[in-house]
């Protein structure tokens, strides 16, 4: 656990990256971080098109309002986005790249001096029926990998944030997805 995190989310419109950014901010606040912010990338967003979002977590009030340049953590909801350089752009040495992928971190073939975590959140969510309008919604599941890799927030505060946002039945499925993804996350430290 560190005092300050800058997390950038990459996904496609409809996958829920913005919601994930917000749930994490809520969980971090419950964890005792006084400063949290969560924002979409500003401007137009389209279903299926690459989008990003951000979460900042700090012990004190966040004073930075500009876009994140050097994230500690990059979370990628769709591994096909890894072909774009901006996805890992600025990710600091020793930070975490967290990818929704069936591949082992070593097989991702992403250069850099940051750590990598992977989990097949798509399969977990697909098995649990977390599908909305034909899109498998992996945004909450990947929070399991985030917790496993960074230990920035506890699973119990993730659970509180999820329960605060969803109905009981929806919360149950999302929490199951998070727990399973947490367990299957594979970590590759190289920072």
């Amino acid at each position: 656990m560190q005092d300050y995190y800058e997390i950038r989310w990459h996904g496609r419109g409809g996958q829920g990256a913005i919601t994930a950014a917000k749930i994490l901010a809520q969980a971090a606040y419950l964890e005792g971080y006084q400063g949290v912010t969560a924002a979409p990338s500003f401007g137009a967003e389209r279903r299926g098109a690459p989008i990003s979002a951000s979460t900042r977590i700090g012990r004190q009030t966040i004073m930075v309002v500009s876009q994140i340049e050097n994230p500690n953590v990059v979370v990628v909801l769709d591994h096909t986005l890894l072909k774009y350089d901006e996805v890992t752009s600025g990710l600091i040495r020793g930070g975490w790249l967290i990818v929704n992928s069936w591949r082992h971190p070593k097989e991702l073939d992403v250069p850099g001096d940051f750590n990598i975590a992977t989990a097949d959140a798509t399969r977990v969510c697909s098995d649990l029926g977390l599908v909305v309008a034909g899109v498998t919604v992996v945004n909450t599941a990947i929070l399991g990998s985030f917790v496993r890799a960074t230990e920035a927030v506890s699973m119990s505060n993730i659970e509180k944030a999820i329960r605060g946002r969803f109905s009981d039945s929806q919360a149950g499925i999302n929490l199951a997805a998070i727990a399973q993804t947490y367990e299957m996350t594979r970590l590759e430290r190289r920072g």
Partner: protein
Amino acid sequence: MAEKGSTRILDGNNAAAQGAKLSRVQVIAAYPITPQSPVTEKLSEFVEKGELDAQYVAVESEHSALAVCTSASTVGARAFTASSSHGLAYMHEMLHWAAGARLPVFLACVNRAIGAPWNVLNDQQDSISQRDTGWIQIYARNNQEILDSIIQAYRIAESVYVPVMVCYDGFVLSHTEMPVNLPSQEDVDRFLPPYKPHTILDPANPRNYNLVTFANPRVNAEGVLCHGYMELRYLLQEALQNSRETIIKVGQEFGEAFGRTYSSTLWANRLDDANTVIVAMGSLVMEATVAADILREAGHKVGVLGLRVFRPFPKADVVKALEKSRLIVVFDKNISYGLEGATCSEIKSALYGSSVRAVIRNFIVGLGGRDVKARELVDAVNRSLLSAKEDDLTREYPEWICAI
């Protein structure tokens, strides 16, 4: 005093809607526009669910939205509207009308650039372009200040009978979530009593308001000598001049009631020993304090002056805050084309005739959503420090932080 109420993670638009709800607004008329739309959606939801006892009037344009609000205010209701950019520009005529009619209407301006070319992102050109309409303008640095300023705005507006606009940066605040303390309804009710209108339309006692008014004072049908147009304009100016006192008093009382004090027209950050002062408005004040941290680490005595109230322009407060400065670096997210950034002009005007003899540099930043990073502010201050000379107090035109 410790904070009361409950803290939630809210974006700026939600904070604005919650502020309106806590202020028990009675009439809402607004036309959706990016990035303001979620304010209107949230408020219509409150009304639909019965959580807010207000009439939500769906209109076909921003001009009509403010026409509805001025009418509602004239008949004695607490009115709320919100807009951005082209929508605010379209309201321009009615902005003059609301102020001229001395109606305590409230408007949330979610700051956005104006076309052409089309751009939905943040700068402050929209509200700055309305500075001469006779409205009080307050700028929020963060989402807490959006909510708090709305509650205060109704107290201010209904005390001085001048409409109030609270401005906050589109997307940077409107779509960014952060912790916001929501006061309890009981506490807000104690702080903000129901609106006591100074004009009431009553069919039993019919009246005319804002009729054709001649240049000179004139005796009316009842033999009473009435103000001419110019006297009414004088009174509007006088009301704005005197509103500073009310703004501060309301801010102090807000602090006593809720534990967050707004006792100045300005935000001062480490000005005590600063010889270099960064001036900014809105969320940029937050980023500027990060820049000041970096410059302090490098050994420069840098402070930040944030303009909270832009109209009435707090001239005396600004002079006092800048009295020790040798270099003032003003960042504007707007430009008065052919001259410079509006806040820079106002600062210079305020300092005229004072004892402050500081070098002033103006940078135009962040237009159309261009990201403004602390390191860019640091570069601009460092450049200004290098160029600061007694014989080069000011520049004819501003510098721009852009690719040209």
